[in-house]
């Protein structure tokens, strides 16, 4: 067990190095170096750039040095938690991302909770009542949920609520709270509106999850051990909840893997449509204005979190499922 964990962590390292290379490549991709575009931007605004400031910036980002030196410099900074400065906002990248972290994380956690709370019972019901009318209805809804892109769902819902109730559901708080400190009133406003992104992001996730849960549980229900347990007279509810469901839960554990990056980015496109004050729109803005330190850091952090998330869910799977623990893990 410990050996497996150790090996898994070891495997993650080359991936992390590759990720850092790709992220750095993204930072370097736009033509021209960022410093000269920054200086041009300042000069366009009529500000003057002092020579010594320019030299300091140059030294800081290692401009004029070969590319591998710049990369090493960047990596050293990242390891210390310094992701560079966003030229658009003129603030450290880490500060910008952290500012919006709590709201983003709250929405991600809530929508995952929503997915679990809805998909689990429906998936179990669908599998135990296969080919019943409700099973067909749920399967159909699941199909629709998979087919509708979440940002479209968000748009339609926004429009529907607006045209029927005259309420704009976009944003997490009314405009007068923009930039205000977190007072009790603001928290209450957020509480009132946070269910919208939660439900929308949750719905698209739920559809897929119901389908996996149903398929997995159906496979498990055909296993001989279920028949044995039934023959021994175990009550049906206890039987299903205690054994097959436990194994069919594996995909839920796998969600931990993508929940972690979700904490940081949120559902990017939905957040943009709903104009949420989360990290998703921040990333889009960074990309559109080629604010590459911010954008590259996003890609880097998200990928690293995905790797860590996958690591955690793999380890959790081994802990939960004895068959994986004692079987060959590599052969999966």
């Amino acid at each position, binding site marked *: 067990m410990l050996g497996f964990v150790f090996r898994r962590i070891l495997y993650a390292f*080359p*991936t992390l190095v*590759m*990720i850092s290379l*790709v992220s750095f490549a*993204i930072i370097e*991709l*736009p*033509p021209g170096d960022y410093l000269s575009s920054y200086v041009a931007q300042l000069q366009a605004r009529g500000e003057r750039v002092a020579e010594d400031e320019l030299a300091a910036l140059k030294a800081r980002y290692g401009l004029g040095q070969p590319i591998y030196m710049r990369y090493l410099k960047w990596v050293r900074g990242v390891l210390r938690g310094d992701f560079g400065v966003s030229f658009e906002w003129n603030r450290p990248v880490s500060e910008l991302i952290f500012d919006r972290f709590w709201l983003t994380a709250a929405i991600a956690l809530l929508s995952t909770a929503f997915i679990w709370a809805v998909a689990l019972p429906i998936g179990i019901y669908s599998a135990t009542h296969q080919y019943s009318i409700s099973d067909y209805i749920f399967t159909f809804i699941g*199909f*629709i949920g*998979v*087919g*509708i*892109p979440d*940002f*479209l769902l968000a*748009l*339609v819902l*926004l*429009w529907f609520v*607006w*045209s029927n109730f005259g309420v*704009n559901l*976009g944003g997490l708080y009314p405009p007068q709270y923009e930039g205000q400190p977190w007072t009790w009133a603001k928290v209450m406003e957020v509480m009132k509106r946070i269910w919208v992104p939660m439900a929308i992001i949750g719905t698209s996730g739920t559809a897929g999850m119901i389908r996996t849960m149903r398929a997995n549980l159906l496979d498990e229900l055909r296993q001989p051990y279920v028949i044995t347990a039934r023959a021994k007279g175990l009550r049906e509810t206890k039987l299903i909840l205690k054994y097959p469901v436990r194994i069919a839960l594996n995909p839920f554990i796998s969600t931990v893997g*993508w929940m972690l*990056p979700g904490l940081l*980015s949120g559902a*990017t*496109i939905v957040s*943009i*449509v709903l104009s949420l004050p989360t990290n998703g729109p921040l*990333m*889009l803005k960074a*990309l*559109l204005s*080629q604010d*590459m330190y911010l*954008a*590259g850091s*996003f*890609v880097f952090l*998200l*990928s690293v979190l*995905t*790797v860590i998330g*996958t690591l955690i869910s793999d380890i959790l799977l081994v802990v939960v499922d004895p068959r994986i623990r004692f079987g060959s893990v590599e052969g999966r």
Partner: protein
Amino acid sequence: MAGQDATPAKAKVTEPQAPEALAPTEERIFVASQWQLMWWRFRKHKLANVGGVVILLFYIGAIFCEFLSPYDPNAYEKTLTFVPPQRVHLFHEGQFIGPFVYGLKRTRDPVTYVITYEPDRSKIHKLHFFVPGHRYRMLGLFETDVHLFGLGPEEKGHKVYLLGTDRLGRDMFSRILYGSRISLSIGLLGVFVSFAIGILAGGVSGYFGGTIDTIIQRVIEFLRSIPTIPLWMALSASLPREWTTVQRYFAIVVLLSLIGWTGLARVVRGRFLAVREEDYVMAARLQGASELRIILRHMLPAFLSYIIASLTLSIPGMILGETSLSFLGLGLRPPTVSWGVLLQEAQNLQTVALAPWLLVPGVAVVTAILSFNFLGDGLRDAADPYAR
């Protein structure tokens, strides 16, 4: 085909036991080729059939979009902005006159200055078929100006908008048809590129195994560890701005397949590994068949169907990817018309509240995605020889 190789052997085994007991239907199944069996099983999957027909119609619409659309997708009409979809009527005051639309009455709200349109019941514009319009090249072969429908040439200055117009007074119906050409072809092309890389990498990985397999698997794992949407966004944002629309189009295709191939390579490798151990492959090898013949004649038929199914299932992801990127303004850009570009017009609530018909491209996206999913599901079930 594998079916042809397998049937004589099977017939020999069954004959001594029950030579005349085979009912005609059973006999039909016994002698049917693999593809025929799959086709029969596919025909039973109703939803998949519907999906297949819808997709066929979509692609026909995309191929003949110039002919089917009444107007040029980029032709604008300054005085006819945000016209709501017009209803096609058949009867006027109880009298049958064939398909027609009422004229438009344009009024401006004196307080808010919002322009509204109402059907003008005194004016009747009959729809004509095969009317002349803007010129185009049919299938790139010959030039013509015939369009399937439109208003007669005598009604100059009047237009028919089946799905309304956008903020510049461009016909949404024509734009959606033209958009389908871009959006649907990007899905196909993307899958084609992914397929080429995926089958090569997966095949090499599964057939040779060893170090090269490990390397390819690590690369796949790495590509999959980067979250798709941020990576797509970052890469498409760094495409040079001065690129032409064609360059951009192909760049987006490459971007989408950059991640798409990994899934296919995994499928191919998995099937390769599974089939390699089958007894009939061993039998073929013992009979002295060459490696190439084993791969092409014995192994490929066993998983080709499976791969076609997973190809079909990966097209909607491509279409969705393009739509999302263009919707965010990172993918294709106007004057290219794709469903994502069209949806970008409906990005904020104010516009949608004013002109809900701008969401119609979304209906097209959802229909296409669902149809591909149904079709892919049906194909997968049909391709699985162990399905009940």
